[in-house]
């Protein structure tokens, strides 16, 4: 049977040298995607697994090299409840009664959302992966809500986890709001549009290290360009770098200055690409510009906006350059993001701790980004289509 097959093939394709180009064409589907897969396997998946091992072990320098000792989840324990708790989770404060009230409202909101899903009220098919995903989302967000109230009040102090989440959530919302406003203004029929567009795009090209130094100069209260204003207000000798929240806001301002351009460009393009007829019809009917925005423009740009926010969300978790240079993580650990925390741990040769912080960041980033993608991004995409 097999021999016969071979015979047939031989007669059909008489002895011919294996043509390289033909082989290339035949194997093209594999060859096209193979480089990407190999690169990701080699430089993302393999390191990820190695890093998992590092996170579970203790690194020690010994004579002539180093030694890795398996310690289980000790590194994570140290971060969550051990000696590094103040650094990662933060100093826990007491939750007041009214704060408990807010927490319970938020958590029952999550509970209602879950109930709607499982009872079939949301008209979605209940699947195993869907259920597990929703349970993880609700669990993580509930814990983070409680944690936020625990460390963000007067008695507590936030660690790198909460500071990172502050940069991500406050930063992305502020950047989105400003970028959307500017894009709406720029999309109008005005002169000098192209000038504004080019000018607004520039900050994204400046290296974040440079931005950090530029803002250190900008924010210098005694010698910076705005120092006359501060002197006038009697704040000439005031140092924002000594105040935890002011320092965090300065980092956030620097980050926003750099990333608003990205969101601005994407949103502007989306606004300009939407069909004009609908808007003109609504305007003729006398709809207010707020109504036009709410009912026509926003639904039209929602899918693009969701993707842009997702990209920004992904990048926001990685913030390090600004806090490292602008404030050096200080005062104390007040402006330290998780990436910076991990870097500092690496510098002090605590490789296990560094990998553990990195892994925690990975976990939070994945939960937040995937939740956003599945529960908000998909919905706006469906509405917009």
């Amino acid at each position, binding site marked *: 049977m097999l021999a016969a097959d071979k015979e047939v093939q031989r007669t059909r394709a008489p002895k011919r040298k294996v043509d390289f180009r033909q082989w290339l*064409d035949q194997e093209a589907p594999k060859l096209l995607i193979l480089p990407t897969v190999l690169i990701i396997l080699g430089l993302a998946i*393999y390191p990820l697994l190695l890093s998992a091992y590092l996170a579970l072990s203790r690194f020690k320098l010994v004579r002539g090299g180093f030694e890795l000792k398996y310690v289980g989840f000790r590194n994570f324990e140290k971060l969550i409840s051990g000696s590094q708790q103040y650094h990662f989770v933060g100093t826990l404060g007491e939750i007041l009664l009214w704060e408990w009230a807010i927490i319970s409202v938020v958590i029952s909101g999550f509970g209602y959302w879950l109930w709607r899903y499982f009872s079939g009220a949301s008209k979605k098919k209940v699947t195993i992966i869907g259920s597990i995903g929703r349970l993880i989302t609700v669990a993580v967000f509930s814990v983070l809500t409680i944690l936020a109230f625990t460390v963000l009040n007067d008695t507590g102090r936030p660690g790198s986890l909460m500071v990172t989440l502050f940069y991500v959530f406050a930063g992305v919302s502020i950047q989105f709001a400003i970028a959307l406003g500017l894009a709406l203004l720029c999309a109008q029929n*005005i002169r000098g549009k192209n000038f504004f567009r080019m000018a607004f795009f520039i900050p994204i090209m400046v290296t974040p*290290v440079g931005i950090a*130094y530029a803002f250190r100069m900008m924010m210098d209260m005694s010698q910076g*360009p705005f120092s006359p204003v501060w002197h006038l207000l009697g704040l000439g000798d005031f140092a924002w770098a000594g105040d935890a929240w002011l320092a965090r806001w300065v980092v956030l301002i620097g980050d926003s200055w750099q990333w608003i351009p990205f969101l601005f460009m994407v949103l502007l393009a989306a606004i300009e690409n939407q069909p004009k007829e609908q808007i003109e019809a609504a305007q003729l009917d006398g709809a207010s510009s707020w109504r036009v925005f709410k009912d026509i423009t926003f639904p039209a740009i929602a899918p693009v906006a969701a993707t842009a926010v997702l990209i920004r969300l992904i990048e926001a978790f990685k913030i*390090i350059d600004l806090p490292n240079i602008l404030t050096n993580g200080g005062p104390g650990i007040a402006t330290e993001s998780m990436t910076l925390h991990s870097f500092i741990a690496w510098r002090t040769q605590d490789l296990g701790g560094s990998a553990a912080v990195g892994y925690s*960041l990975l976990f939070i980033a994945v939960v937040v980004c995937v939740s956003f993608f599945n529960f908000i991004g998909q919905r706006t995409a469906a509405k917009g289509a």
Partner: protein
Amino acid sequence: MQRSKQQPKSLWQRMWEPKDVQSIAPAKKVLTYIVLIAWTFVVLFPLYWLFITSFKLPIHVSDGPFYIPFIDFQPSLHAWEYIFVDLGSDTLRPYMNSVIIAFISTALAVFIGSMSAYALTRIEYKPKVGSIMGFIAILGLVVYLTVSIKMAWQLSLSIGGALFLMFIFAFNKHFKRSLNNNDILFWIISQRIMPPVVSVLPIYIMFQQSGLLDTHFALIVTYMAVNLPIAVWLMRDFFARIPVDLEESAMLDGASRMRVFLTIFMPLAKPGLAATTMLILILSWNEYLLALFLSTADAQTMPLMVAAQNATRGPQWWYMSVLIVVMIIPVLIAAAFMGRLISKGQLGGAVKG
């Protein structure tokens, strides 16, 4: 006729009501310009300040703010001289490093990413769940062998490879479930969520073991890997919008897939390519964290050099301003080349939900 019937409008009303649908009410226009010009100031002032600081003497910085050169203070070229004459090669080396690393890694990432993006839009893949699981298991084994038993990584990798091939041939037919293109795409994109700080420690160790630490190669490969997901993500949407008929007729004429990709797809997606290249170039040009880990002296890039100007005598504002200004120039030139294509709304078209 109609106009005479209308009641005369007050000045206040006329300010807020547009003359016709196409134009904007005067008051609104004024407000728009105020906001836009204010934001232009916010955007350009820090850059202006950097620019003039690069011409200042230390005394001009420490004695309080001076705003306008030639009027407030006498500009001096001392910082530029120091950076380009006194330091000379020490400035040129990081600069060339940055140029080489950013441009080569961007070109590679965009090309390889486009290849995969093209494949994902036009060819249907059905990777088997079984072989993926097997692969992950064997990769885990390789890591265990390398780290825990301290086997040489070359040896453990080849053992893993051999095991995987055996696994594929022996067991693969028993696993029927397969994934599709969207799963592959999601897998590729999800790599971008991974914070670089998680993978940089093992990458550092890998390059250290193979003696490639602090070389161009290490940084080019790492930057390419980090930016590849973005290239695939953006390019796929551009390719998806190219009509299928074009390539079908080419294929009927006997063109190979590679030919179709290089001669039909790449030219048609030029605006998309420009936008993607621009974004990735900016990201790798300004990258800081990976360079911090993977380079020390020979392959040092510009962001590290800028950061290093914070010396023991305090930050050397005038020197770092020169460096930052010099760093913006190549990106601005690249943006000017590609800016027209991007401003046509291609970037917005690329990120479609």
